[in-house]
């Protein structure tokens, strides 16, 4: 402050800068001092009430007995008690019964999102849309069947697809080409090779697949491997699926989740998947 501006004649520190700037040594305003003292008193009281001071073997525990993990556990218990009214019903019900109950299935759709993300999304995608080489769960085409009990079975025991390379017999390039073209046009039965090479044994007389064997429908718009192009179909016919004799064989394995998840979680996932794409 300048020497002209010291209306209350407060003492100065005696230092003068720029000829007339002096530093006053007066008290800060009273309210400010009250604030200062109130602040440190609060710190001390806080330190008494809550864990704060370093001490031998940890820190002081505080009179309130509060701990971070305790608060976390309390919150978890609070959420569990909200969910209990639904969760308690689930173990005693079958997956199809849960699906039929609109309130419970709505609960499962909302709460099993995490379960799906943790266990299924890595292969099937976050929205169940599938990935190259991994089936789409939101369409209406099912390899092993889309009813809820089959889904439970699929999740529990896993699935391993099987298709022998070159139909397990010898096939010439020309034969593979002809068969692949017929399949790409959605008319596998139009090629005599479909019967000759025993494709029908798994894919059915009409080429529409067989759920019991996980053999896909070859007449619809959905493809298990690739985009339905002749090239992709030829690759599948040439190398098969999970054929141990062909190292280039396509891979189609779903692990057994029965070993990792409990029955209730599997039921939840089955309901969640059933609800994904309006079966």
């Amino acid at each position, binding site marked *: 402050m300048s020497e002209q501006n010291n209306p209350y004649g407060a003492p100065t520190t005696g230092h003068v800068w720029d000829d007339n700037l002096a530093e006053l040594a007066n008290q800060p305003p009273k309210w400010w001092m009250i604030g200062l003292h109130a602040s440190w008193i609060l710190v001390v009281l806080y330190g008494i009430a809550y864990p704060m001071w370093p001490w031998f073997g940890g820190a002081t525990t505080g009179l309130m007995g509060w701990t971070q993990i305790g608060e976390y556990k309390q919150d978890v218990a609070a959420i569990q008690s909200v969910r209990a009214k639904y969760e308690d019903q689930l173990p005693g019900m079958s997956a199809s019964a849960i699906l039929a109950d609109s309130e419970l299935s709505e609960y499962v759709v909302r709460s099993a999102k995490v379960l799906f993300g943790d266990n299924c999304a890595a292969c099937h995608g976050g929205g169940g849309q599938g990935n190259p080489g991994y089936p789409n769960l*939101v369409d209406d085409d099912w390899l092993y069947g889309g009813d809820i009990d089959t889904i439970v079975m699929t999740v529990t025991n896993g699935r391993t697809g099987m298709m022998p390379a070159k139909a397990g017999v010898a096939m010439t390039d020309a034969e593979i080409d002809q068969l692949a073209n017929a399949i790409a046009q959605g008319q596998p039965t139009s090629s005599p090779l479909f019967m000759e090479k025993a494709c029908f044994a798994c894919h059915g007389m009409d080429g529409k697949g067989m759920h019991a064997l996980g053999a896909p429908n070859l007449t619809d718009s959905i493809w298990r491997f690739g985009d339905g192009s002749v090239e992709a179909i030829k690759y599948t016919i040439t190398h098969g699926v999970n054929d141990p004799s062909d190292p280039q064989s396509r891979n189609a394995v779903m692990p057994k989740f029965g070993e990792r998840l409990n029955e209730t979680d599997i039921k939840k996932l089955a309901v969640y998947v059933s609800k994904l*794409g309006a079966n």
Partner: protein
Amino acid sequence: MNDQVDKQAHADDLYAESHYWHVNTGNETIHAKRMPGRFRNVKWAAAAVWLVFFVGPYLRWGERQAVLFDIPGRQFHIFGITILPQDVWMLSLTLLFFAILLAVVTSIAGRVFCGYFCFQTVWTDIFTWIEDKLEGGPQKRRKLDEAPWDFTKIRIKVVKHVIWIAIGMLTGISFTLWFGDAFEMWKGFLTLSASSVAWGSVAVFTFFTYLFAGHMREQVCFWLCPYARIQGVMYDKETILPAYDYNRGEPRGKLKKGQIEEGKGDCIECGQCVAVCPTGIDIRHGQQEGCITCALCLDACDAVMEKIGRPTGLIRYASMDELEGKPALKMFQRPRVLVYLTILTLAMSGILYGLFNLSGIEVKVLHERQPLYVLQSDGSIQNKYSVKILNKTAQDQQVRLSVAGLPELTVSGGEGSLAAHKGRITSYTVFVRVPRASLKTESTPITFHVEAEGEEELVSTYTSMFIGPRP
């Protein structure tokens, strides 16, 4: 050497005004004199607006409180209108409206809010009025403050502080009443069974009302309030403010034998303008941060001018231009006022539009993003939507959903009569499927229309997109 002198002169210039800076930092209590007058009456009338704060919660509307800010229920009820979080844009416009109203009023007539309406100055005014009634005028109050603690002093002080705290509590309780049923809340307070949030709010309000209005007073305006400073910079030379007419007043001089001396101005240095000032400033030093433009000094000066037979208005509402003898710009010629008024009008139109177009039912549709579309085995394309139906009416409704915009579309998941629960959002997952041939582009707008059964005016439409592969 010359340089040295110049520098010194420059520094002195900088501090030329500093002799007048007598800013009270709280080391002395301002004991302002209370005088009757025109602006004193205006101040009381303006303060009376705050009665709404105390009386408002007891008004009823049908079966509920007329104005209820139901925070846990996430609903605001204002008479016949219910406002949900979805209408928050109207709240933003309301805030904008009041912010600009503050700006335009400040630009025209100074800190009208501070001087007449602000809770800090109004509550302080009430608190000092009580002090004045109990302890007497400023002289007596100062004397009492310095007097030793005897029975009379203790009695007076205890009564004063008890009344102050009681006002603080009433303020706190009245505040909480806006957020719950007023009569139920009172029952809770009287039986000591109110919620901890309610008690906490009352405690905080009581403490800060007592501290701010009883003890800190003008210090709050000086050191805590941002609006005091913001409003100060909204003035311009055309703003009319309580101002001292220095052309008429200077040079000042005391009365000699009841007369103004020859050659002296009208200001007789009676000091009444300073004595009545609730923030303890001297208006004759010009406009300053401490002036809340309450105009109580106008009353004081006018009373003195009448007594000595001079025209009133030595201190009056006047703009800087007027005092400097420049022609005054008309209010509506000032660009600042026009811009503020335009914004005000826009905000007001938005609020009115909102209020008249609040539908009882509102549908929002979220398109599933992962995946955007699904190819089905028959070659058709399916999109998934979550349809959220917000029912703002007081009854559960049954609604019907229809979707249009693409040929041969089929809908599953939203058929028949759907329940829309009152006061909240009910959501449904809806699948729309169309043959691939129907899609001419990657994305096509489709509309979702929701209609309440039996209530024709409860309708809502939302346009979303149908996404498919590149055709």
